[in-house]
């Protein structure tokens, strides 16, 4: 995959809606036989639209297709515009930074900051951009969301605690054990101490 495909047309994936097939200026202009600006101008007028429909041999919902083409062309132009701007930038920035470094070695790191900032454009943790602010808003809203809810009622036990009825019948082994305890005053005292100990 050594070929730079940024300027080459890509195969048209099946999922693409018809009307948005152009991945570069070249492919679009070849297809239309005119410059992109002209294509957009034509889309704006009824006559131009008719011409394009005829030229592209469009059937059915031609308006939708043209709308798609319009968006396609618009995006391609934006892409190019930004590419051109950014293409010029790093060379100049880097050259300037190197010049400063040569002249003022001490402030090398400071000069590099500008380049770092350019790089940090897309590194969110440090870049103070709108995205970080947006994320703060999203985070802050969680508190508001968490206020919703009817809630679980309190489980009060005051009436139960006032009347120490401890449950249902006890197993026979408790009564057998009680008989043994009863026969030994020492065992009774010991059980008393256990209950008092549990009440500390």
């Amino acid at each position, binding site marked *: *995959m050594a*070929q730079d495909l940024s300027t080459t047309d890509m195969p048209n994936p099946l*999922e*693409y809606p018809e009307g*948005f097939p152009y991945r570069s200026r070249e492919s679009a202009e070849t297809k239309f036989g005119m410059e992109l600006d002209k294509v957009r101008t034509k889309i704006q007028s009824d006559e131009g639209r008719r011409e394009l429909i005829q030229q592209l041999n469009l059937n059915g919902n031609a308006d939708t297709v043209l*709308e798609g083409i319009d*968006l396609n062309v618009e995006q391609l132009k*934006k892409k190019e515009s930004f590419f051109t701007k950014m*293409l*010029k930038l*790093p060379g100049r920035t*880097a050259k*300037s930074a190197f010049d*400063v470094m040569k002249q003022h070695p001490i402030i090398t790191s400071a000069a*590099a*900051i500008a380049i770092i900032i*350019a*790089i940090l*454009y*897309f590194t*969110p943790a440090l870049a103070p*951009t709108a*995205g*970080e602010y*947006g994320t*703060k*808003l*999203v985070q802050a*809203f969680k*508190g*508001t*969301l968490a*206020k919703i*809810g*009817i*809630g*679980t*009622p*309190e*489980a*009060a036990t005051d*009436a*139960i605690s*006032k*009347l*120490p009825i401890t*449950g*249902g019948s*006890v*197993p026979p082994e*408790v009564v*057998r054990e*009680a008989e043994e*305890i*009863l026969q030994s*005053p020492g065992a*009774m005292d010991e*059980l008393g101490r256990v*209950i008092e100990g*549990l009440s500390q």
Partner: protein
Amino acid sequence: MPETPPPRQEKQPSETPELPRRKTLRRESLQKVRNVVPEDSDAYEHAALATESFLKRTLDAAALVEQELTKNNALPLGDDKHLTPEEVMQYEDFLTQAEALAMILPKLLQQARIVQYQPDTEERLRSVFEIIHEREILIQNMERGRATVLRGTMRRGSPMRPGEIEELVPLATLAWMTSEKLSPRPELSQIQKEAMSRFIGSLEIGEGHYRTKTEAVGDTFTETGKTADRERRKAGAERVTQGFPSAELILDTPELSVTVWEYLLTKGGKNEKVRAARQLKEGIREFQKDFLELRAYEEFTQEAKTALKEHMRKNENISRWFDVFDIPGKDILKDRALTSPAEFQEIFDLVTKKMRGDFDAIASSDDAKSIGEFLIQLEQMEKSENVDEEHIRRLLAAYARLQAHTGSVLATLQRWQVAENIGRVGATGKPNMLDQTTRMGGKTLWFRLQELAPYGVFRTRSYRAEDGRIIILTPTPPDTLKDHLKEGSKAYLAVEAAILTPILHRMAIRIPLLGKRLFGRWYAKIGVPVALAEVSIAGAESGAAMVRMRQALDAVEISLGHLETASGSLQEPVIHREADSIFEHLLIALQAAEGSSPDTPNTELATEAHLYTNQLLMALNFPPYHELSPEAVPSQRPEMSQELKEYLQMRERERQGVNVATRSKLDDLDLSIQNRRTPDLSTTDELLRNGILPSAVGTDSLLQAMQEVLHRPEFRQLKYDEATLGANERAQRQKAFETAGEVSLTYKKLRKIEFENRKKLKEKYVGRESVDPNAKTEMGPHTFSLNDVEKDIRRLGILSPMEILTIARYLEMHEPTNAEIAAMWYKENYPPTGISSLLGGKWFADNEMNQRFGEPGNRTGLGEKLLREWVGVWGYEKMVLGTK
């Protein structure tokens, strides 16, 4: 209590005049609490057992109280054995409170269950267990004390029969004993009588403390309820923000609470009604202030303004740096890298305006208008004034609808906010921008490139928040032209990201210091032409992934809708099926959103999907039925989401097993529920103490007992049995892995024969008699017949359960390498050589083993895996060969 009340009729053990309603309530309530599943944490399981014990005691006591009231009502007018009006009121209060608890406690436990892996909730659940156990021990000793007193005294001149004492013990409070005028049995010695007199003093102290402990149980439950509510709402808000389907269900499901509130407000006793009216009124007032009087909106706006100022200041500071160094191109940099105050203000206005609109929509709904009236009615109830119950029911239903509506409106608003802000360059964490393409963490170049998306449709539909949570964005269907580019400026920014890659690459390599130290590893792997070409090819697949994601999310919603609407009538297998469907589709959606290939299950995403599936089930009042194979659980990494980390930490802790002291407490509570005091020696204990199995044990109970022994600390502390494993580490390793591998391979061969014959005979079940014992079956490089496998099974049969447990314990603590697994579990060369091998090539072999055994460093659960396989082989030997 009256000073000298007359003796009452003797109790008949069979008499329990429980109201049918209370019987139903009792059955449902205990059943609900008892339904603990493997995915529940130990803390939840212990708290559930304790709650069941507490509830059972309370409801048993309520049956006794009911019995006393029934007898009282049957007495003729003027009979001096009648209870006093104060006593009747006290008894009735007891009954209504017991009923209220039977409704509240399962609900409260379920709320805590949703967030049971969260540390605060876990701590609260532990305190529920501890305090109820303390109370239980006190009660058991009081019961022994009361039984001793009843055994040593006479009532109406006769000693009491043991059966009668068994029935009277729970009721025999000191007040009851006084009123019954019990007298010591004449044959007791003077020393015994004196000891009993001292002992009654201790019982009095115990009864006083019974009250304190019981109130403490109530306080602990209330505290647990508050913690659970708070944590559940936080979890719900997180899930809504993450864009997970039906997250509002976790945030709140009012209809589940409303039944309890309705009971308390309309059927509860006087105190219950007053208490419930006060609590609910406070809750409604908060809601009114927050949403109808816009307090929550104001708080949010205030917070947003503070953040706004902070970000504007930061941007200005950076902007000054550009001016100081007077860098060529600084205006472009300012424009592209920074955000102007106007743009900040625009975001602020956009969000607050939309939010205000939604708040107004909530406040103007019909249900919101009834809030004022509801507050008035609740105030009247608080003052014990009469209100129309039907009216209260209607108002409560309106309030529940309002809550659900608010949840839904705010959830939609939150999702809008996420979608609105996510596309802005610089979103926190790992946005779908540059660092998606330069991420290093274990992703292949292909996947990284796939995420480099030049158009909206190709972008992955998720990003990671700062705390590691996955945020998924609902995909738009790529069926219209507009949608294809709908994201407008956001898609544009994504285009820039793609274009910037080569530029930044060049910049980085021109500045060796920065490039090497800071960014070198990012760009080193991104070949520019390759990147752009791969992006375009991957585009088609990403578009398809988006469709898959949408379809998967829709399927999740359908399953959830089914569970939500038919919850009462669903059988457990149906719920399991729906849970599996939710899990599978959620995993597809998450993998599609993250842009990872559907062919390779991602264990981290699988565990996320598993957790979320169970959270949803629990929010819908079901247990966390969905289970994940232990081998599919990933190892912990710092960048994982909070809930995933908490879940993995919980699992790690629980691998240590339950300590002896806790298990003894569990036994106490378990016996109390069974109304017994002396435990039988369980299969687990038999196995642990004597190494033997009861003759009637089946495969399920054997597996359960062996798993339990495996996790018992006292078993883990045992030295390795030299006779089983050998004296030194090398011999132990060889023997343990070799045996585990043999068991595993034998088990797999057995399953393979069964599978092949089922397929051949088109039967669900194939008996041994239908299989040709000499017919050869192939599995990878192995060829074998049933006769061969049965020989192996008989040979393995000489291993005892304790020997297998020893090996399982070894496996839990020592993990095999891929080479060892290949040699001993698969009996294959490593790296594999033959085309028809089980493992395929080295890459496939590693992949296969990592999937089945876990990634190296995280091969947990191999001991349990061995137990499952051994029990499978043991079962065949016992049931089919009949040699056990």
